[in-house]
């Protein structure tokens, strides 16, 4: 049952990843990417990390995909053109490199021998149980899995506090940097509504693009 479910999700995940990479139209690629993100969230559920799955959907589909879509809208013709991939030779070279790496990775994964008293990856076919209380050793893990939001919060503010603060600084820097980069030339004020304005610029730019699209489709 689980294996079938995994197989379905994995197949769809690989297919949507391929679609992202190969789709000519960038918005279609973005749509495939959204499907891929969602299937990764499904895999997180299969791994019993449902908090992470929710975070994945929230951050990737709710934010990253939207930003990417905005980026697509602002940087190209709305109609997909076919200059998004390299030449045939480059395509073959890239494909060969990818297939080669995949071979190496699969070989490595299936032939791993396990270091210093740990089992080889190949022989790990079951996960530590969390439902019955029999698995004493992973009790704290079981508690964490059953209420992951709580466990993540506690860990963030105790064990990973430095990383948490660093992530906060990084996000602030990224926010300021993104605004500073994306803001348009011209009369610029330094108030926090700049982000808003860049969004409005996005809107007006989109309007321009839409107009050009309409004229081109009429022609």
């Amino acid at each position, binding site marked *: *049952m*689980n294996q079938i*479910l995994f197989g379905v999700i994995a197949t769809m995940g690989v297919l949507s990843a391929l679609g992202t990479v190969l789709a000519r*139209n960038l*918005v*279609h690629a973005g*749509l495939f990417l*959204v499907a891929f993100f969602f299937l990764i969230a499904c895999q997180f*559920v*299969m791994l*019993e990390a*449902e*908090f992470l799955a*929710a*975070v994945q*959907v*929230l951050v990737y*589909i*709710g*934010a990253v*995909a*939207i930003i990417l*879509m*905005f980026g697509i*809208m602002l940087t190209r013709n*709305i109609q997909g053109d076919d200059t998004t991939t390299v030449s045939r030779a480059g395509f073959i070279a890239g494909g060969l490199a990818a297939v080669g790496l995949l071979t190496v990775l699969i070989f490595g994964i299936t032939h791993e021998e396990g270091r210093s008293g740990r089992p080889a990856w190949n022989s790990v076919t079951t996960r530590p149980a*969390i*439902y019955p209380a029999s698995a004493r050793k992973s009790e704290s893990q079981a508690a964490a899995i*059953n*209420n*992951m*939001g*709580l466990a993540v919060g506690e860990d963030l503010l105790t064990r990973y506090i430095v990383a948490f603060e660093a992530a906060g600084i990084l996000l602030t820097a990224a926010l300021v940097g993104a605004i500073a980069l994306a803001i*348009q030339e*011209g*009369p610029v*004020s330094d*108030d*926090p*509504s700049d*982000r*808003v*304005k860049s*969004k*409005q*610029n*996005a*809107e*007006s*730019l*989109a*309007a321009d*693009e*839409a*107009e050009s*699209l*309409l004229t081109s*489709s009429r022609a």
Partner: protein
Amino acid sequence: MNVACDWAFPLVWAQQSELDSIPWLKWIIVLAVVFFGIFPGIVAYTVWGERKVAARFQDRIGPNRVGPLGLLQPIADAIKLITKEDLVPRSADRWVHLIAPVLILVSAFLVLPVIPFGVGLAAVNPPSGLIYLIAVSSLSALGIFLAGWSSRNKYSLLGAMRAVAQLVSYEVPQVLSIVPIILWAGSLSMVTIFDKQVLYGWFLFSPPGMLAFVTLTIANIAEVNRTPFDLPEAESEIIAGYHTEYSGMRFGLFFLAEYLSVFAVSCLGTAIFLGGGTLPWPLTGEPVVTLGGGETLFAMLLLNLPLIGIFMAKVSLYIFLMFWIRATLPRLRVDQLMAFAWKFMVPLCIINIFISAVWYECVIRPSKPNYLLGWGVTLPLVVVSIIGVLALYRSSMKAEPVELTTGSRRRSVVRSVS
């Protein structure tokens, strides 16, 4: 109650289904009835209610031809929508055009399973239910974007751009005004939040709770694109926004999704601020959960019927509030909309999180809650912060010259240069 492994995700489902296979069947029937029967029915009569309410506000009668009081009007509308031709523009991106409304509808539907309508009546109870809810409700932005993009129509595209900018902006205050609840309940599970409100009273009944409820309501109205935040589908400016090019039942799906998300955000507000199906004063001395746990089906029903009734009454009031606002207020301008989100709502919500921490220290953490101290400290803080943020917001709006959009300014600059 078996809380530890109670969340129904595939692995647990699979484990249970080995014990007996009937729950699967039961689930499927329940889902089919509730999700494809009851919720669309609620939507239909929400639409009818909105038409009636709006008519009364405008001194009209509203629908009264089909059935008594026009009660069969939604069915007539549905038949009309279904029988209309489903047009797809020739230059549209066909598949994306077909997927987009489904995506929006799915996002609206997916919110509902975690809402606790009564004791044991949340379809699933994941321990991170609130995060899940926020996550799936953010899917609709993507659907709207795709709807606007795939239509190949500049009004659609403009509407979609407006909608996405608005949804992304107002998601921030929406989430920030939920944070106090997470802090007070100490959990992300909707059921636990409901239980805590049974213990501590509604989360609304505290100064930071009231402020958070108001900000959540404003953000909710913006999230479901209703007046005064209905710029994405402003008829007088951009026809019908992102669903300009949709017709027939596909337009009906947008309609369904819009009213379903109205219902969903009302359920959210009711469940986390208004104590779900409970009354403001406690019915019994002990938590409702212990009453419902392990009882017979009949006892569960008896317990749940009044809970569902009260819950639905609160949801109806909340929806009526939205109708009222829609019938009363004019539409905002784009710059006002954005400035209101980023300069007023977000700072206020962030300050409110700190105030709610004070409330937590005064009332929820001590074994003996000190309500007097809590109200005495937080009420002045809330009032001062509202006044302060409002003053800052007004001064910043006054300092900036009014301009319609940056786009028009840019064009005028270009014109003056040339």
